[in-house]
């Protein structure tokens, strides 16, 4: 087995585009769920709206890429308002139901035959990323020791990690401010916050919008990297991956979602390659599993790791143990 190449390929995933996309989505969920206690199970819908914003504006309507960015973000804001207005006055579980339904609605409308002219049906939309790559300042591949990044990837990584840094900074600034304090208060007990003269509904709405916009950024980065906007990427498992990442890294921590995303995508790649290598070398017998099974086995192993984590470190990697201990009282 070539451990060198396994590590190299896994480390690429550590800082790869998938890590960026899920870090952004998880930062958004962190604002909503980690700090405000809003169960948004529809982060995939926000990501899809972001991706469709660019794809539809550029490819379908042949308009400017920049307008596409604006439409994608505005779309996420509108979606958050649509979901929030009826549900945020109700108990938390209603938002969960509505958002998970909305995320499927967005995906199914996107892949429907009815909307094929606009959204491209189940094949999705391609050919909208040229403007983005025209902005690429990198003209040749970058070599860093054993790593080599092609210029396209380099550009996506640079933009993506900048976005992650900005979002993390925004969360950091917000959560140490009185605004963040109100959010955390709402998470603990919204009636208490109401009784202190805070407009809880408005704060929940702001939280939903901000988290949703970060989700839209995730979708934009991913579809620009792929050069294609495919609705089925944004199925509900997109959302649950982001949740798993957030819980792994530590909900209600500033760097938790970023760390979680890096670890998860590193581990996925590492487990996959290590299993393939072991099968290739005959360390794992054929009757147990072959190389086609690695995709499923890595999810099983990830599940085991998450269960162990919740048993032995329920606060996540970066979380504060004392906070979890309070729940047990």
């Amino acid at each position: 087995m070539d451990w060198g190449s396994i590590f190299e390929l896994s480390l690429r995933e550590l800082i790869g585009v998938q890590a960026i996309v899920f870090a952004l989505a998880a930062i958004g969920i962190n604002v909503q769920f980690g700090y405000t206690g809003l169960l948004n199970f529809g982060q995939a819908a926000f990501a899809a709206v972001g991706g469709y914003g660019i794809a539809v504006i550029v490819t379908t309507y042949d308009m400017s890429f920049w307008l596409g960015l604006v439409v994608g973000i505005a779309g996420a804001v509108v979606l958050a308002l649509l979901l929030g207005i009826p549900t945020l006055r109700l108990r938390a579980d209603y938002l969960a139901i509505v958002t998970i339904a909305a995320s499927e609605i967005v995906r199914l409308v996107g892949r429907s035959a009815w909307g094929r002219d606009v959204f491209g049906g189940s094949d999705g939309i391609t050919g909208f990323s040229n403007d983005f790559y025209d902005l690429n300042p990198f003209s040749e591949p970058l070599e860093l020791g054993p790593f080599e990044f092609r210029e396209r990837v380099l550009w996506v990584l640079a933009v993506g990690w900048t976005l992650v840094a900005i979002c993390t900074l925004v969360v950091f600034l917000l959560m140490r401010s009185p605004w963040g304090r109100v959010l955390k208060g709402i998470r603990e007990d919204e009636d208490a916050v109401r009784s202190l003269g805070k407009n809880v509904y408005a704060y929940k709405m702001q939280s939903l919008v901000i988290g949703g916009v970060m989700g839209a950024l995730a979708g934009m980065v991913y579809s620009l990297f792929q050069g294609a906007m495919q609705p089925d990427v944004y199925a509900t498992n997109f959302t649950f991956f982001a949740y798993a990442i957030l819980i792994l890294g530590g909900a209600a921590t500033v760097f938790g979602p970023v760390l979680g995303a890096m670890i998860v995508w590193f581990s996925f790649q590492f487990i996959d390659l290590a299993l393939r290598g072991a099968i290739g070398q005959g360390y794992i017998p054929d009757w147990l599993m072959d190389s086609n099974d690695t995709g499923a086995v890595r999810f099983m192993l990830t599940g085991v790791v998450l269960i162990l984590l919740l048993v032995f470190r329920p606060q996540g990697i970066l979380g504060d143990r004392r906070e979890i201990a309070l729940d047990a009282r």
Partner: protein
Amino acid sequence: MPDDNVSSLTAKREAAVAAFADVPREPGAKKPDPILVADDVKRNFGGLLAVDVDHVEIQRGSITALIGPNGAGKTTFFNLLTGFDRPNSGSWSFNGRSLHGTPPFKVARAGMVRTFQLTKALSKLTVIENMRLGATRQRGESFWRAMLPFTWRSQEKDITERAEDLLARFKLDTKRDDFAGSLSGGQRKLLEMARALMVEPELVMLDEPMAGVNPALTQSLLEHVSNLREQGMTVLFVEHDMDMVRDIADWVVVMGQGKILSEGPPETVMSDPRVIDAYLGAHHDQSLAELEQEFESGALTAAAEAELSGDVAAAPSSEPQAPPSPTEDAPIDGGPADEKPAEETVAAERTGDTKDGR
């Protein structure tokens, strides 16, 4: 409070009591200077009329107790007044401003702040953060300015100072940086009260401030409540602890089955036959003649008073021990706010217990 303030303490109390001198001892009595006036407030839960208040006024600068048996509608009335629940009809005004249909946060901003029967400390926030949250009109609570710390830092410093003063007064300063969830039940009650004061209210509404509090803390909580009046605030509180009502209330409003049954100073109210009936249940298992005889001899009143003060040991032997009949007791005691079966409620009432099992 320093000792030299003791004279002014009593002065405030005397002023409050004096204000009630000419107020008739009857439900819905007019007060000389009401801060809160409610008219015809009704709230239905299904077929049950949980609150049905014709008229009530709360005197400014006084401590008013709202008492009544379990399920009398006290907490529901609180919820209606503070906007946490909506009435089927009615109107009420605070400082002359109508609050009907006003959402809870605006009620609080208007200067009417409540606490909850089940304490709502924000567990995963530290004590000082709980306190800071209470301050109103914070610049840093707007989204855009939140990201620019220099716009709110000086205000935050002032708020922190005020919070620390209050914490010191409530003897929570040593807990400043602990999570609120790690405090004891009594300390949480103190924190909740201190946090409510951060809003700088004119009217403080305390829903069972003594519930679940260790007796050792009771005295200091009592002092804190009466101190609120000394600082010029008006207090309205719901309480089952009759000692507390007797000690600090200037005026008592009694509710039963959603209605205001009686009003008056503590001593008067506690001997009011309507109040005694509400607490003990109607004397359905006695003949009228028997009841009358007992009432005239004063035994019934004395027994009821002993019961009201929560003195179980002195519970009278003359009290009828027949099992309570649910058909007659249910409408009195099995109110909407508590889901306990009527019999259990009656039993709890008899032993002077409250909802919190004290």
